[in-house]
């Protein structure tokens, strides 16, 4: 007994920080996801010439809380012949995988739960892929033919695009030589150039594959409402559904973070080591002051006193954040915190931009049909990603032979990217021809993806 307690104390002394961070994330993430959903709804409304949630709280800002409360108090309906254990397990698996993969991410140089694991990116991608179990088991446990069909389609889609995403990541990783997340960002800092410039085709492939990975439009056929099968989430109501929902948005955050880390420079400021651009350090605080100023200007226009106070609260919150952001730049005593605070800001900014792009795409373009989706994954993205790995590898060899570094590497990687693009166009053209000729295809089994 004593030994057990002592071992626990040892464990806690070593790992109290990651444990605390983990608890904080699990507690805070649902709220964050709720607000991401609100942002999506407001953005969708803006692009559709309407207003979005406006009633719950000023400008709908308390909508996520209302939604959360509603989901928690909803009746938990379990279909009659559903497999009860698996029914309970499926959403838990999805959410568990998604949250666990957050542990490997580094939001700033100082903030990483699973500190400095050698296999950083592999850990994140691999664990988030375990979420597929949750989807398959969810469709299975619902004991509904449509849910099963939807979940099989969804898992086939995820597995197919996992390969393409992985190969795209490999192209990026060739440029660093390590899977360690901190080392990747430091490599970008060392080279002085973000890897998106050096491997744009890889970034593009990863972008498309990550949209398919998270079941977002235009790849959301398995969960679209206007299709015949309503998807694996149909039979889950209330809290279980909110777990799936949480898993989906957390996956979005995870893939955005992976892309940001590998391609967009992680927590680095644009032109991080160039002193000429040091004025960019003032961009974050100015941005927050701008937001605060906008809130202040809208305060008198609010219809009621409560809303005005709320706006003032939001404005002052933004102002405080601006102060926190400007401190490391101006005050010498706060300088050591510069990397942590500004790094955190830039990382969150880039992840937000990536997620904004996801949302923008969702509202703009129609959905792919399932066979078109699979064709895109297998016949276009995977060959392209393999070719890309080849050309990036060759470009790297050439650049190390000539001892090129940093921006000079663009001289070799740009031709490589152009070659990859040409190959892409060739594949597309070949695809069009075969489509035109292939009118009477026999019934194919799309579950064998």
């Amino acid at each position, binding site marked *: 007994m004593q030994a057990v307690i002592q071992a626990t104390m040892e464990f806690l002394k070593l790992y109290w920080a990651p444990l605390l961070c983990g608890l904080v994330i699990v507690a805070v993430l649902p709220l964050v996801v709720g607000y991401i959903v609100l942002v999506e709804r407001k953005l*969708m409304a803006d*692009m*559709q*010439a*309407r207003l979005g949630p406006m009633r719950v709280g000023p400008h709908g800002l308390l909508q996520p809380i209302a939604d959360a409360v509603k989901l928690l108090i909803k009746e938990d309906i379990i279909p009659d012949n559903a*497999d009860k*254990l698996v029914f309970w397990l499926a959403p838990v698996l999805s959410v568990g995988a998604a949250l666990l993969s957050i542990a490997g991410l580094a939001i700033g140089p100082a903030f990483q739960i699973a500190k400095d694991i050698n296999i950083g990116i592999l850990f994140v991608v691999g664990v988030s892929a375990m979420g597929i179990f949750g989807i398959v088991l969810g469709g299975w446990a619902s*004991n509904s*033919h449509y849910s*099963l069909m939807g979940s099989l389609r969804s898992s086939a889609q995820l597995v197919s695009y996992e390969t393409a995403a992985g190969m795209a990541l490999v192209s990026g990783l060739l440029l660093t030589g390590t899977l360690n997340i901190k080392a990747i960002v430091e490599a970008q800092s060392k080279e002085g150039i973000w890897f998106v410039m050096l491997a744009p085709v890889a970034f593009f492939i990863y972008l498309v594959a990550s949209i398919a990975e998270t079941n977002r*439009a*235009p790849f*959301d*056929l398995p969960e*679209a*409402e*206007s*299709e*015949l099968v309503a998807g694996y989430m149909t039979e889950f109501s209330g809290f279980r559904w909110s777990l799936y929902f949480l898993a989906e948005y957390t996956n979005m955050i995870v893939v955005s973070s992976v892309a940001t880390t590998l391609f967009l420079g992680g927590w680095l400021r644009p032109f991080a080591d160039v002193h000429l651009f040091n004025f960019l350090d003032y961009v974050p605080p100015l941005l927050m002051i701008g937001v605060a100023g906008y809130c202040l200007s809208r305060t008198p226009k609010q219809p009621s006193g409560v809303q005005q106070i709320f706006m003032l609260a939001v404005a002052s919150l933004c102002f405080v954040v601006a102060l926190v952001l400007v401190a490391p730049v101006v005050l010498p005593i706060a300088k050591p915190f510069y990397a942590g605070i500004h790094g955190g800001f830039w990382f969150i900014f880039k992840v937000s931009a990536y997620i904004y792009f996801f949302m923008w795409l*969702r*509202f*703009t*373009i*129609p*959905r*792919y*049909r*399932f*066979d*078109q989706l699979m064709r895109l994954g297998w016949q276009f993205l995977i060959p392209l990603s393999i070719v890309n790995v080849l050309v990036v590898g060759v470009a790297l060899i050439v650049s190390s032979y000539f001892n090129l570094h940093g921006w000079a590497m663009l001289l070799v990687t740009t031709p490589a990217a152009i070659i990859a693009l040409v190959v892409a166009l060739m594949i597309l053209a070949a695809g069009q021809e075969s489509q035109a000729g292939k*009118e*009477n295809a*026999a*019934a*194919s*089994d*799309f579950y064998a993806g």
Partner: protein
Amino acid sequence: MGAGEFGNRERAVKRVAAEPETEGETTLSSEATTENKTLLGADELIINMGPQHPSTHGVLRVKLKLDGERVIGSECIIGYLHRGVEKIGENRTYQQFAPYVDRMDYVAAVSNGLGYCEAIEKLLVVEAPPRARVIRTILTELQRIASHLLWLGTHALDIGALTPLFYCMREREEILKIFEKYCGARLTTHAFRIGGLQYEAYDTLEKDVERFCKDFESRVAEYETLLTQNRIWIGRTKGVGILTAEDAIAFGVTGPVLRASGVKWDLRKAAPYAAYDQYKFEIPVGTTGDTYDRYLVRMEEMRQSRLICLQAIENIPAGPILAKVGKVLKPPPGEVYHAIEAPKGELGYYVVSDGTVQPYRVRIRPPSFINLQAFDRMVRGHLVADVVAIIGTIDIVLGEVDR
């Protein structure tokens, strides 16, 4: 649990497929009824898209016979919205029946009213005065635009584009405002009367229509940017639901569906009614008869309707708006068949009069009902995901299908 359950599920599925379908079997084509095994030796699956479904545009029930993912047969079961409008027609006077026709194709009520009023005018052998005819034309063309806008929004939504619906509703709102200013109602307008119009055009009608038409050009261009050259849209609609011209004529299909199949026929040109012979407009024709062509035809029709409106408001003749028909309408015994080009197709009224104040028989030839018959022909060989696109592209309104 485990493997046993999966086995049960498979057997359950097979049981559904092997069960003889009593209502439906007889109407599916012979090749489907005799064989129960498909290409791969697997059993066929019969899936029901029930009357309640987000994408069937009303209470339409579609039974699909599937081989894996491909549709090899289908059957539409209608009648969920049957209200006996034709029977009601025999029990109301001619004027009393006019509001009922709005409720059939409730999306394009003005067109229904136009067809009915013109049919009764033919029966009475009277002609509406020129001013009434021009105003009728303007309102009917606006209604055509509104109907096509609704079609575009919902069709795009079915295929997955979430945004065009809201833009289309924004435009449709302007048209409905004009209707409301004119006759007080937005949807079931009862805008016309037998013999002409009841309401005089309100003072700013011409200005409103002109303002709408000016804005509309750029809006249509906006929808086109979103969809026409979009690879995903083309992928979802090109080659889907092809209906050849011979099939279209054989199945009595009319309207944009027929024109997209290559047959250049529009009742506004073939048998002009209202004031259509005074205006210059084109009839868009498609080539292959697939969903993409139907989309293009309807987009072009919206543009042409706008042109008609612009031409019409330039010159609305002065004069009376109602012909002298008297309060009690007693047409001499006889019958008439009058058809107009409604947004959905040829809307025909076959009215038989026996000399009394109530019609003896009012038969409505519903374009959606007849176009829906071609659904089976269009959907064979396609994937389940295309079924929704094809239902959307025929542009049906169940109120008209079922009456």
